[in-house]
């Protein structure tokens, strides 16, 4: 067999391995319900419940942050994150959590929010209205 054919086969094998590994390591999007029945890590998209208590008190523990999130189909769970409360958390509404369920609480290893530099939501409407009110 020609050397180039052998190398070609190796190349294709590596390429297939890449694709299989990607598929194998890919996580899934789910809901809190899925997380209840699943021990692996999941991605959950949802909205922060701002009515409920957000707990972060650096004086007690600088690495404990908890809040409530409602997933896309309406389940709500307490979410615990080991770390500080992210800086623009109060301004965010929709977030993605990566993590797993632990005794009824969702332990997030990552909280994904849109980077503020690219989160270009036009806010003039609010501004303009308040300005009008003060005129």
């Amino acid at each position, binding site marked *: 067999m*020609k*050397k*180039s054919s052998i*190398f070609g086969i190796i*190349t294709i094998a*590596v*390429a297939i391995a*890449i*694709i299989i*590994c*990607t598929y194998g390591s*890919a*996580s*899934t*999007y789910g809901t809190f319900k899925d997380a209840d029945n699943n021990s692996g*890590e*999941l*991605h959950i*998209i949802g909205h922060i419940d701002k009515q409920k208590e957000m707990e*972060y008190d*650096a*004086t*007690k*523990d*600088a*690495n*404990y942050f908890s809040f409530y999130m409602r997933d896309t189909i309406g389940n709500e769970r307490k979410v*615990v994150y*080991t*770390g*500080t*409360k992210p*800086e*623009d958390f*109060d*301004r965010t509404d929709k977030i*993605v959590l*990566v993590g*797993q369920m*632990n005794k009824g609480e969702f*332990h997030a*290893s*990552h909280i*994904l*929010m*849109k*980077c*503020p*530099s*690219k989160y*270009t939501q*036009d*806010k*003039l*409407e609010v501004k*303009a*209205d308040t*300005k*009008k009110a003060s*005129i």
Partner: protein
Amino acid sequence: MTIDYQGEHLLPGHLGQFFIVLAFGSALFSAISYYFATTNTNKLDTSWLYMGRIGYFLNSVSVIGIGACLFYIIYSNLFEYHYAWEHSSRTLPVYYIISSFWEGQEGSFWLWGFWQAVLGNILIWRAKSWEKPVLTVIAVSQTLLASMLLGVEIFGSRIGSSPFILLRQAMDAPIFSRPEYLSYVKDGNGLNPLLQNYWMVIHPPTLFLGFASMIVPFAYAVAGLWQKRYKEWVQPAISYALFAVMVLGTGVIMGSLWAYESLNFGGYWAWDPVENAALIPWLTLIGAVHVMIVYKNTGHAYFTATFLTLISFVLVLYASFLTRSGILGETSVHAFTDLGMFWHLVVDVVVFAIIAATLLIIRFKEMPISKKEEDTYSREFWMFVGSVFLALSCLQLVVVTSIPVWNAIFKTNIAPPSNPVTLYNVFQAGFAVVVTLLTGVTQFLKYKKTDITRFFISTILYLVFAAVITGVIVYLTGVYKLKFVFILVMLGAIYSILVNGKVLADAFKGKIKLAGSAVAHIGFGLIMVGALISAGTSNVVSQNTSGMDYGADFDKANNSRENVMLYKNVPIKMGDYTVTYVGDSISAPNHYFKVDYKLLDGNGNIKEEFILKPNSQYNNKMGLVSSPDTKHYLFHDLYTHISMAPLNVMQAGMDLGHDQETNDDANYNAPIAHDMAVGDTIQYRDGYIILEKLNKDAHVQNIPVTANDVAVGADLKVVSHGITYQAEPVYMVKNGSVFDFARKIDDAGLKLRLTKIIPEKNKFEIMVYDQPEGKRPYIVMRAINFPFINFLWTGTLIMIIGFLLSIFRRNKELKTV
């Protein structure tokens, strides 16, 4: 009904929009003219060529015109324009106006178009017989870029997004029904504080020069296939490809330097899709450069060279589709949101992909593909293998980064890997092992045929030598604790540095021609070494051991207790350092937190002391935004950033010096009264207080003391955590009434009052108000140690020098041939 709006400056916008349309039209005209110039069989007819040139010059002038109008709008704070309102503000210094110019998508498209215009002009001047076909390709790309800025409605859908759109056109708000609306729009949104960094002034132009210059080798490859000048295109394309690789590589590293200096994620590389997008075409083009050299020297690997050159530019466009179309959605924190250009961007990719694919297919039979096999012990074979591995590493980046694209195409719902960084690291490290080893091994091989015994002796000799050095480095830096593949990368990198070091040494003895590649390889090896040690063994200095206990299994799941809280003036032991939050300094809008680091020796003497000033700024648009501060040593960096600061600290900082005599006892614990004589000492939680003497002649601001009044001050010395403060609470009898004036020591969290004088015992009652921990100023911070990070930066510099030397060398060859 039309409203006659007041105060708007419409001229620069109209002019700019005119230039956009002109840029689009002239680029299209140029592309068509150049196309007919290329296909024209009458060699004496130069009219198409001149029309093509005129079109291109006109396009260049229009692009500059667009830039001038946009800059004028931002510079003059014309907030009736959406772009200026969105990205700039009155307080922005001039050098950051430049950054705000390309903060938005439109500005960065302009930057791309500008560089492409410059490159096109250089090619008109230099490309000679290649001008017609090469400029055809570039003018097509220039047309597509200009169309991204058009912002006109055609058949009910908007084509492109214009930077000259007015605020009232971009948004719907009731205020725009008022003719004088502009008088309410006082200021723009301003530039994101994270982008207010000098790297953001030069990183985008460099990166986009890199992207733009990738079209030149692509255009040469297309021209070569189109004009059936199969062999000739490679030679001139090598220099341009080297240039593109050098500039894009520099741009990428500048981006990571910016991330390291102003972002909070604690590092310089996070495998974010936006970062990957710039790396993807770089990897394929660096592969292309190597196989082009192989083809030039041996006639082998023609198809691979052509294919990699073509795919690199298609990947540039694909990368811009990924980051600009909004398809990445939740998977990237940095990608742009969709401006309604999704399909426009798709068309851009597809046009060039079709050009490349069609030419490859219809010309395949005629390509000069060598029938003879490469020799196993030849340099060309292993350079070819190395290039294929670079392409494979790129494939892995593309496949994983594009997960949202697969979801969109196949209607699936796969999430990205939950730990993408580890996945990328392991995979890319695997490819890096092969690539770095090959950059070494191939130096011992010759083109066509090599003496096998000599090859094996020198290869193995150097490998053993490299293994010994790797062993020492891995042991000393702690890299051995990482996955095995990372140790192999270290071996590969060290091997590459040693072998190329030898080549460089030989080069000084005479074969000076070879210096470029050797230097670039050494640089690449150093980058690998620096990245491995600094990212692999970076350790969080601020590892928190205090705090509530959440049970063992929680800690196991998340062991990232990386933040530490510091009360003001309370030192904390953190790794080898004693760290104290000593104060604030405000330079609006930045709030700097002064963090004092002390390194003590065994006897408690200070070996080293320095202050880091990480900052936070409260931004109306973005909320609280923090940037780190880093202490740079020759062999490591100490990186510190604020994770969180209570807002009251920020506010306290803001009105520093305004003493408010309001009753704030609620902020303190229940007071404790002490009867003290002069010279007495009392203990309190954080230290002790001494009553040094009494001041019979005390004064209180704004309150005159008459002969009938009594005012006594107690001179108190407070020592808290080794810091001494003075305070003088005052007791006053005025017009028969008793007052006392408390004194606060905010930094120590104390309020002191002299509440009673007990003459019979010659004692004084001092009330001590102690602030509960939560009310006292504090910060939460994280500190990370990055060892040997300077290898990464010096490696980059060396690699750039290597590229430059190679470009000079290839240009020289070009002239002699």
